[in-house]
């Protein structure tokens, strides 16, 4: 069967099943269980309306519970057990964590992750703020924004290919096809560099890819926040003789601080989960390992579920403060 037809059939089946659930479950509720007719019409409608929210929520709750809530608990359990040969598993306490802490690769990943967490959100937010402020009052600012925003649509893998070309190195003496090496040699560098194999600095070359992607996101949100600043405050500052830099840093930035924090945390979460860039570009070689890739390595290459789960828990631990803070904010809003 042609892959296109096969795909269409599978799609029809999947989507149809979902539409069917909502349609028929409501139909059954209204017509069969609590029909809106007969002697108990008022009672039936009331009862149907008590059940309906759960009918509406059921698939969502099932999926959320199964795919996000249950794995947190299960991974925690897996991280303190070990598979025994011949099936089954046994409780081993913190042995997996101990084993993980003894590995140099883990510390390398943790160290790199901290670097990523420091650099990527900061740089993306800074570039985004810069781009937002610069493009804000230009006639063609929206076009410029679209172009800076565009990498958001590109997959991490696509971005990895794009940047591999930028970092490409050809043997000495031949024309360089990677723009970074071409520039490096043009400005007097001695010979092409294999950028992705230079320990420590190569992490920054990988981070550049994520910064490139996330700047557009930061820009869009910060630009909306900048537009929300009341004109009066800026005008008052101008009347008082403030220069453009003073207006920006002393008037505008403090007023959008809340938004900056939101952008910063959102990018932080992305950084913690990011896996594809390192996987596609270096696969953690040359000391570029990060936690997400380390975990994938353990789970699917070394087949060590215990240590893999333990490192997943480390990632969870790192997002936990953000989680608590989000929930706290949401609850405050609901009141």
């Amino acid at each position, binding site marked *: 069967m042609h892959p296109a037809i096969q795909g269409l059939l599978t*799609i029809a089946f999947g989507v149809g099943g979902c539409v069917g659930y909502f349609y028929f479950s409501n139909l059954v509720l209204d017509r069969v269980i609590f029909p809106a007719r007969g002697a108990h019409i008022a009672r039936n409608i009331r009862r149907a309306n008590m059940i309906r929210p759960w009918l509406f929520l059921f698939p969502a709750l099932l*999926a*959320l519970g199964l795919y996000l809530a249950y794995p947190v608990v299960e*991974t925690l359990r897996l991280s303190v057990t070990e598979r025994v040969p011949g099936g089954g598993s046994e409780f081993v306490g913190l042995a997996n964590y101990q084993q993980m802490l003894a590995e140099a690769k883990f510390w390398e990943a943790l160290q790199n992750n901290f670097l990523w967490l420091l650099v990527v959100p900061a740089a993306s937010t800074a570039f985004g703020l810069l781009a937002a402020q*610069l493009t804000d009052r230009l006639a063609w600012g929206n076009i410029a924004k679209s172009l800076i925003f565009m990498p958001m*649509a590109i997959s991490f893998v696509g971005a990895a290919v794009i940047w591999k070309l930028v970092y490409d190195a050809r043997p000495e003496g031949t024309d360089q096809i990677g723009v970074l090496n071409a520039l490096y040699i043009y400005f007097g560098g001695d010979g092409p560099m294999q950028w992705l194999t230079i320990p420590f600095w190569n992490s920054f070359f990988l981070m550049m890819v994520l910064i490139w992607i996330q700047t557009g996101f930061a820009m869009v949100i910060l630009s909306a926040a900048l537009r929300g600043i009341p004109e009066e405050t800026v005008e008052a500052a101008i009347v008082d003789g403030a220069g453009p830099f003073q207006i920006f840093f002393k008037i505008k930035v403090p007023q959008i601080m809340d938004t900056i924090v939101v952008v910063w945390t959102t990018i932080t979460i992305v950084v*913690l989960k990011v896996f594809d860039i390192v996987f596609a570009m270096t696969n953690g070689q040359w000391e570029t390992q990060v936690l997400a890739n380390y975990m*994938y390595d353990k789970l699917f290459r070394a087949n060590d579920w215990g240590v893999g789960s333990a490192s997943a828990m480390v990632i969870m631990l790192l997002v936990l403060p953000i989680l608590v803070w989000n929930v706290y904010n949401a609850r405050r809003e609901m009141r």
Partner: protein
Amino acid sequence: MTVIAGEKPALIWALRLSVVLLVGLWLFPTLGLLVSSFRTSDQIATSGWWRAMFPSEQNLTLRTDPPSAQVQEGDLYVIEGRLFAEGTSSEISAWGTSARDPAAYEPGISAELRRGGTLMVAADGAYRLESTEEISGKRGPRVFVTATVPPEFTLENYETVLVSGNATDNMAKAFFNTLTVTIPATIIPILVAAFAAYALAWMEFPGRALLVAAIVGLLVVPLQLALIPLLKFHNEIGIGKGYIGVWMAHTGFGLPLAIYLLRNYMVGIPRDIIENARVDGATDFMIFVRIILPLSFPALASFAIFQFLWTWNDLLVAMVFLIDATGETTVMTKQIVELLGTRGGNWEILATSAFVSIAVPLAVFFAMQKYLVRGLLAGSIK
């Protein structure tokens, strides 16, 4: 642009320039990939893509026609011909007959060959090889030229990647697989989330606030945690690795954002509309389908774009829940990663494949940008 007090014209120019610079910097890498995907592998390998528009100087090793083409003119044996194919406008700036000195002669000059005879190469590639004795051997003598080759663009790479390529190069199957993953994985979570968001926004039931808080919390749970437990679960219920599993996974992972965005939007719909409909005897299901869904179109569209981009671009979920040992269900991102590993040097295939895979999301992005931005703002500023 209006000049307001406190801004100098010089500053405005500096501002315009920096924006141009910034945009250029952000566009440059992608442009490189796009240009490279239209070049031949020789061209990619010998000059940077930013010079693709200009003729490039290349050192080539060519051969004259074989001795079988020789003709006798009086007592001379002659081979005449052109080093380049007819119709090209390459120009030779220097040539030579030995690899040790490939730029020994200028075009138009005759040089003695080591094996006897003289060779004359003109700037346009026409040559004349003369010898007093019959020229022997199977192949013509080598000619080393330094030539300026005109830019060349081709659609051949796209043909290879989309139609004619072998199993590793051809992306057609992976393209359809990606679509098969993406379309249901976009529609199903929207449906599920829309119903849930309506319930959370407009239906009264105990525990509503708690559910909303829980969903906000789940927004940040890293999906890495879900890999092993769910793979085990999928194996236990018998779906193993396959489309159903990957749809379910994408649905689960996409839901918190979907419910959050849609609920925030639906809460903003005026209460009157819904209450009037209730008074008129509409059930919640009817209100939802007839009123809420059409009214929520902007929010639905913005989430649809997010989910589409995310599932189309995904690598991890597909690798864990979909792609099995047969490789029949591979998606484009995975195939490109494999190409990166095995064909790291074949830029023409790599660049074209990558561009095929990012073309669809880019098209969606530029067409629906308005909704994407709206969704981002709804989700982030609260």
